[in-house]
């Protein structure tokens, strides 16, 4: 593609080309080499996958909104929207340099703040495209936390935590595993981020939920566990399906190359694991609770997606089914354990989905990798490395998150007042309810038939 063309583009003449140019353009593209096209295809693939990962934020938003109460819907949406927006900016200013800048001893990147000074680096696709893909990933890790600490955490406290996770916690882990750091040297395998993205989010969520404390009314005075059902299951289901859709970009795009032959099989292992986990979570809740539970089935689908993320490119289709089956079952047990035994209040199940299934998925590579997994005759060496990685990342994330939440708690406070929590964070933090027929709102003198709320449908 000639320079001239691009300039035309830039001056806004998109697709003009007209009568006068007729016949030129096709000849034009004739100049291009196979190598250039491959580079373009890799770039497009990375970007398209990045768009799909971006769209996952719509999924997170809907899941977290649907699985919490109506009175906190505006707040949880604001948290999600600010996570993607501020997360991307911070990852541009700081995080990317720490993740992918020249390494200081395999532990931390040191250059590339504002993407400046990386001219010499080659990421296989243009720097801006590579950054784009990594930035939407970073925001994903960050947004996991919002669900776990929902319905009681101050908006300002949450924003500050987002700054920390996207500038330090997450980028450092990326550096270790994907940035040429010590874990990658060890041979640690985390294809698309069961540990790097999901466990980082999940363990941060664990620390956050534990330090912020349970929602008022979640645990009775005698320790009874109370159910606080979400207010809109269809939102939750839509969110899960959007996430599942976006996950194809998340996993398949992590090749960062459209010409990688593994992409097809990554798509297949991803859908099979998610499907198996959905079925297994459904079946297990049916067995344990007497009826198939929708919120855990939906969580199960996500658990299966998180579980396969590390090994999407290295397990067989059959292996992915097993990874999914275990992930779905594990998810249900983990939710029960965290809620009922640990008494840590995680309204949307983020810790179980991202933390627990993320750790499991990473270990599962050591078991199911068709090249080096224990079950495929590869011995325990990969498994040991995987365990080391899971452990090291867990320690790091829990440490930093603990310090971060403590610090934030000290500076601005973590929690809204009990009155605000009971009334709802929407009015308290944002002055508005999610559903316009506001409680007693009388802002304008015109009545309307709120058919949406008419009490009798017969």
């Amino acid at each position, binding site marked *: 593609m000639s320079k001239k063309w691009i300039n035309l583009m830039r001056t806004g003449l998109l697709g003009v080309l007209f009568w006068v140019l007729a016949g030129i353009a096709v000849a034009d593209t004739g100049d291009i080499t196979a190598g250039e096209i491959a580079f373009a295809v890799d770039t497009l693939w990375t970007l398209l996958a990045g768009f799909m990962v971006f769209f996952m934020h719509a999924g997170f938003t809907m899941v977290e909104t649907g699985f919490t109460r109506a009175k906190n819907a505006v707040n949880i949406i604001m948290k999600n929207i600010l996570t993607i927006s501020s997360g991307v900016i911070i990852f541009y200013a700081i995080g990317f340099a720490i993740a992918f800048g020249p390494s200081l001893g395999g532990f931390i990147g040191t250059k590339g703040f504002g993407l400046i000074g990386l001219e010499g680096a080659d990421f296989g696709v243009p720097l801006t495209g590579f950054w784009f893909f990594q930035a939407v990933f970073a925001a994903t890790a960050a947004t996991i936390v919002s669900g776990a600490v929902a319905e009681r955490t101050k908006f300002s406290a949450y924003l500050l935590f987002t700054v920390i996770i996207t500038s330090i916690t997450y980028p450092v882990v990326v550096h270790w595993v994907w940035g040429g750091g010590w874990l990658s040297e060890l041979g640690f395998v985390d294809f698309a981020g069961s540990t790097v993205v999901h466990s980082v989010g999940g363990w941060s969520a664990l620390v956050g939920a534990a330090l912020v404390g349970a929602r008022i009314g979640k645990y009775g005075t005698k320790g009874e566990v109370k*159910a606080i059902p979400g207010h809109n299951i269809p939102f939750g289901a839509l969110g899960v399906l959007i996430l599942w859709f976006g996950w194809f970009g998340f996993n398949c795009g992590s090749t960062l190359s459209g010409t990688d032959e593994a992409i097809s099989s990554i798509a297949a292992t991803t859908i099979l694991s998610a499907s198996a986990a959905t079925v297994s979570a459904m079946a297990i809740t049916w067995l344990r609770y007497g009826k198939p*539970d929708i919120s855990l089935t939906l969580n199960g689908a996500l658990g299966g997606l998180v579980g396969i993320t590390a090994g999407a490119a290295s397990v067989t289709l059959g292996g992915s089914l097993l990874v999914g089956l275990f992930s779905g079952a594990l998810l249900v047990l983990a939710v029960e354990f965290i*809620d009922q035994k640990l008494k840590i209040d995680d309204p949307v199940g983020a810790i179980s989905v991202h933390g627990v299934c993320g750790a499991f998925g990473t270990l599962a590579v050591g078991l199911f990798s068709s090249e080096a997994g224990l079950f495929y005759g590869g011995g325990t060496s990969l498994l040991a490395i995987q365990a080391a990685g899971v452990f090291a990342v867990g320690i790091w994330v829990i440490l930093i998150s603990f310090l971060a939440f403590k610090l934030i708690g000290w500076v601005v406070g973590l929690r809204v007042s009990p009155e605000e929590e009971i009334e709802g964070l929407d009015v308290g933090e944002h002055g508005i309810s999610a559903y316009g027929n506001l409680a007693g709102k009388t802002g304008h003198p015109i009545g309307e038939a709120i058919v949406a709320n008419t009490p009798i449908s*017969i």
Partner: protein
Amino acid sequence: MKKIECIFRPSKLEQVKEALSMYGINGMTVTHVIGCGIQKGKTELYRGSEYSLDLLPKVKIEIIIKDELVRQVIDIISSAAKTGQIGDGKIFVYDVETAIRIRTGETGDDAI
């Protein structure tokens, strides 16, 4: 004038309304309520934790009528709303001191 207040199953509203309308009674006000009584609701699980569904959906209709119609209206509603199962609901009768039709200012029996 009396107010007849009946609480019954939402599934019976249409039948009750039709029965009343055949008897010539068209004025009524309906509210969606929830209630409990002998019918106790049940316990369900959400994410493995128990919660009780003990307030069940009902409808409440309020009809203000002349004293002499009370007996008959009660009978009509009773038979239209009845299933014979626990949870069928109740009818309560109250005295109304006066009524005013906003549109015309009419009062008393003329207003209803």
